[in-house]
């Protein structure tokens, strides 16, 4: 996983609530068996018309935001399915940070596992950043994970909260599985206890 330390980039405004995972990456692109290459189909149905041509009005099709690395969006971002293709598509496009008043749980978790930083902020602060984002390429935003700050184009600084453990993993690009396998003894001890107390759990009936 790529580390996330300080990110400076263009923020794209997406002032919609309930942006669901079907909008982020429609299901016809879930058939891949790889993690990469989904960026071109990010927001596919909002981004392209039936012939596959770009819809000029969509934010990521406009010159100012083509290289956006930050997304500013409305309430309940990422609701819907658990598909991790949603963060993969965002990441493959180049988005490393999403700022919104709230996120759907699974999506929120999936972001951290893929080196994307989701930031929850009160509505007024999101609104202010949304206004900044409307200014496009002239208005870069800097997100500093170590300091937990967002610096807007006019120098104003907003503080944000992040879970310390997730912050640690993101800052160091740490893989969850490696961390958990360090606890192998505790897992073994748990299994032994469960085997004693609820023996039916460890061995489901024969599966032919």
């Amino acid at each position, binding site marked *: 996983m790529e580390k996330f330390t300080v990110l400076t980039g263009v923020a794209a405004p997406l002032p*919609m*609530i*309930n942006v*669901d995972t*079907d*909008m982020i990456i*429609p*299901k*016809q692109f*879930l*058939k*891949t*068996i*790889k*993690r990469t290459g989904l960026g071109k189909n990010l927001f596919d*149905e909002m981004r392209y018309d039936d012939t596959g041509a770009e819809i000029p009005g969509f934010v990521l099709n406009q010159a100012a935001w083509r290289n956006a690395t930050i997304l500013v969006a*409305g*309430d*309940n971002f990422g*609701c*819907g*399915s*658990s*598909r*991790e293709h949603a*963060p993969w598509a965002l990441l493959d496009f180049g988005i490393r940070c999403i700022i919104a008043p*709230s996120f*759907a*749980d*699974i999506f929120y*978790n*999936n972001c951290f*596992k*893929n080196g994307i930083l989701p930031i929850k902020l009160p509505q007024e602060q999101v609104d202010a950043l949304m206004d900044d984002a409307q200014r496009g390429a002239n208005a870069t935003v800097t997100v500093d994970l170590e300091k937990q700050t967002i610096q807007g184009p006019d120098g104003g600084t907003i503080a944000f909260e992040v*879970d*310390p*453990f997730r912050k640690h993993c993101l800052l160091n690009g740490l893989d*969850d*599985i490696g*961390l*958990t*396998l360090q*606890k192998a003894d*505790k*897992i073994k001890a*748990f*299994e032994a206890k*469960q085997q004693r107390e*609820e*023996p*039916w*759990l*460890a*061995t*489901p*009936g024969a*599966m032919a």
Partner: protein
Amino acid sequence: MAQARTLFDKIWDSHLVDVQEDGTCLLYIDRHMVHEVTSPQAFEGLATSGRKVAHPERTLALADHNVPTTDRSVGITDPESRTQVEALEANVKAFGVPYFGMDDIRQGIVHIVGPEQGFTLPGMTIVCGDSHTATHGAFGSLAFGIGTSEVEHVLATQTLVQAPAKNMLVHVNGALGKGVTAKDLVLHICGVLGTAGGTGYVIEYAGDAVRALSMEGRMTVCNMTIEAGARAGLIAPDQTTFDYLAGRPLAPKGAAWEAAITYWKTLKTDDGAHFDRVIEIDAASIEPTVTWGTSPEDVAPISATVPNPADARDEGKATAMQRSLDYMDLKAGQPLEGVPVDVVFIGSCTNGRIEDLRAAASIAKGRKVADGVQALVVPGSGLVKEQAEAEGLDEIFKAAGFEWREPGCSMCLAMNADKLKPGQRSASTSNRNFEGRQGRGGRTHLVGPEMAAAAAVTGHLTDVRKLT
């Protein structure tokens, strides 16, 4: 005396492997279901890092999302769908994971097969790379959907890193009226909570109306918990649960069964346990319910009219509503009853179980699918299909002009060949009415199985109570 705990607290506590200083928990996972869409990248990760599947015997793999529901002897024609299923088949072989193949009678939708086989049991932690894993909570297990990185984590370690959720109680008092089903109940709950109302919570469903539900009905309710934003919904196990599980192939037998029952009887919320939020619902106030928009919270009784965005609680919601109505080609104030449909889909992990098919067949019996309507019945598993055929339900459906298909997810998400065409409108027993969910430009009205059958035979959204 020990502190009073909720059912969720009890299951959570009994699966803690480790608690970090910051409160993050390492949770043991009893059962892991795997399907072809969200697993290839997880197996790819294991292979690259030289890791193994820690407990193949606690894992069960199936292909369901991409499988054709028509004649399977020709295999899967779509190359991408075929690639995913083939990748799963190669992975289960390489990693020694139990698998029900496409030609196995036990194949079906993961959330139907788990309970049907007794793979799902009370008090367990169950995960799957699929948000509707919440279904299994009907057995009083803690079941939730995870992402592919987490699938890889569970495969490698049989554990998951999680933060505890908050507790919500949805208490449904009284009894559901005639013609009102578990689906109507959960659609109503989605409307009450909104799609983000459950975020951060695990919901326990309780009350007389919930106790009165069959296991099938309970699964329908828990299944759509995710549509209200909560990752898991659960219902304390009782005699209905035990009766359903007795004799299932993977359920415990003999002395182990007796020991299990003794334990399962302790799986209920203690008196006085704390819930962070409590919602009371009056079952008798619920009518057969349909969705009118493109979010599962956009629900209304069938007797109602399409709501007006001008009445929305805030501007954001008003804009979303107007967008939904435009997409759905509906006008504010238009009666919902009578909206014509082109396609009816009966199936999915929400309503693809035997009881659902019986309910739909009771309406279809002796009637005909309306002219110009295509009606599909897709059983949730091979065993559901077999059972339905043994009861003659297939004949009832076929005589009425419904198509009788092979099991799978089918038009719930249209990853296989079963799709709405742009502009087509469906009455569907599935769980999501998002834009394009059932095919690009398709318009979905979520309903229960009886209501779907009623729409099929009248050609429009209909109050099923008028047909019984």
